[in-house]
């Protein structure tokens, strides 16, 4: 697996997509830092971008990479290695290269501006963690989608659809549900529904650092219990971890049964 990972990573990190992705984050972060003297404003803007974009890019690259390397995958399948190792290796190679682009794109501008000893830096760290989680999760989703669909266009369509659903539509339905049933106790439902969407989960993880003062403004006991202590951080972190594991397990399962 490590061997596959290594070569997949070397292949991808040199692709122009990696450079483009890196440059995108680099330019955005750099110009945000340049335009605004205020770090918390930069972090909020970056949060909006990362929560939407990193899942999208991970989804798109996931399907593209799978379909592009299909013939080479067949060659690998004929090598004396375990099937699941090939796919997990490729998946991790993809995710690591995306992560490197994300990390460098965000970190270098911060380093250039020398912002490491600011209290805001922990918000920034959480932001990066959320971005990395989302990259893992959505690349996992799209890899699964590609494994299940031989038709490229169908696979691509599904991947975008899942992203659209989780990034935008889900919150719309969620909001509608909350407003419609506002006469009922909704706290547990709200937390549960949040945990079912990795984007919302990452957002909550960041909010726990960034907007904890607003979250604490709510009077309900369940929320206060959740947001009040380290509990919220731990639970949302663990849930995100589960979201990372699930697609991975599905890749292993599907790849062991699939015909190529």
């Amino acid at each position: 697996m490590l061997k596959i990972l290594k070569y997949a990573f070397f292949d991808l990190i040199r692709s122009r997509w990696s450079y483009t992705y890196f440059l995108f984050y680099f330019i955005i972060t750099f110009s945000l830092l340049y335009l605004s003297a205020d770090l918390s404003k930069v972090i909020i803007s970056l949060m909006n971008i990362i929560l939407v974009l990193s899942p999208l890019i991970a989804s798109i690259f996931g399907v593209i990479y799978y379909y592009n390397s299909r013939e080479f995958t067949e060659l690998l399948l004929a090598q004396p290695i375990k099937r699941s190792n090939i796919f997990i290796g490729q998946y991790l190679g993809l995710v690591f290269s995306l992560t490197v682009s994300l990390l460098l794109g965000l970190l270098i501008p911060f380093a250039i501006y020398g912002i490491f000893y600011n209290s805001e830096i922990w918000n920034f760290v959480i932001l990066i963690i959320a971005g990395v989680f989302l990259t893992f999760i959505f690349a996992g989703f799209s890899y699964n989608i590609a494994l299940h669909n031989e038709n490229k266009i169908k696979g691509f369509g599904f991947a975008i659809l899942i992203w659209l659903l989780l990034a935008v539509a889900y919150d719309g339905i969620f909001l509608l549900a909350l407003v419609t049933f506002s006469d009922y106790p909704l706290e547990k439902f709200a937390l549960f529904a949040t945990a079912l969407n990795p984007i919302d989960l990452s957002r909550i993880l960041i909010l726990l650092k960034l907007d904890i003062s607003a979250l604490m403004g709510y009077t309900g006991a369940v929320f206060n219990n959740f947001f009040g202590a380290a509990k919220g951080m731990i639970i949302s972190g663990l849930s995100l971890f589960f979201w990372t594991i699930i697609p991975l397990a599905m890749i292993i399962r599907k790849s062991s049964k699939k015909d190529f």
Partner: protein
Amino acid sequence: MEIINIKNLNKSFGKNEVLKGFNLSLVTPGIISILGPNGSGKTTLIKSILGMVIPNSGDIYVNDINIKNNWNYRSLIGYMPQIANFPENLTVKELFNMIKDLQGGLGDEKPFVDLFKLSAHLNKKLGNLSGGTKQKVNFTLTFINDKPIYILDEPITGLDPIALIQVKKILKQEKEKGKTILITTHIMSLVEELSDMIIFLLDGKIYFKGTIKELKEKYTENNMEQALAKIFLNNTTNN
């Protein structure tokens, strides 16, 4: 020892039954051509042997090893896929190293690099290579390690005449070494020139297995292609 032994193999994709109660036993080494029209099950057969396609039922043995839930046996087989599509941003050299890595760190590409004059390309990215050069790289990968069995899927498409001569030479040499080489191809001249045995598939079944001479005699034809066409027509009109 049987090199390849397939017992009652069934494989269907959805409602489409590709291999139906398929049996095959190969004992003698040599060059074996697997022939048949599109959809006859050639590719499925090869991929079943390589473990890429998972059978619905039946057993496959390679050198008497049951390949079910096994992946080590693949170190016995060198496989050359039909389409040479490699990671675009790796160099040729890196690709060779990768495959050697995956095969337990063994192997030597040097003779083929010399033979195909690839040394100028070694540090080029695979995405920048021409189709013919890629096919040479593909060929090199297949033979990078010494294996008892080789499976080549349409091995000579896209090769220039000089390379073709060299490929044929290599295949003959390997045969002399007592290797078993399974080839699928549509190019009959290659079959006639090289094959020790042909296997003709139709609708997932073997309709003929034997030497070219036996084929011609059985169907009283001087031309192999004519003989094969006869099998094909007889059986499709009957249906």
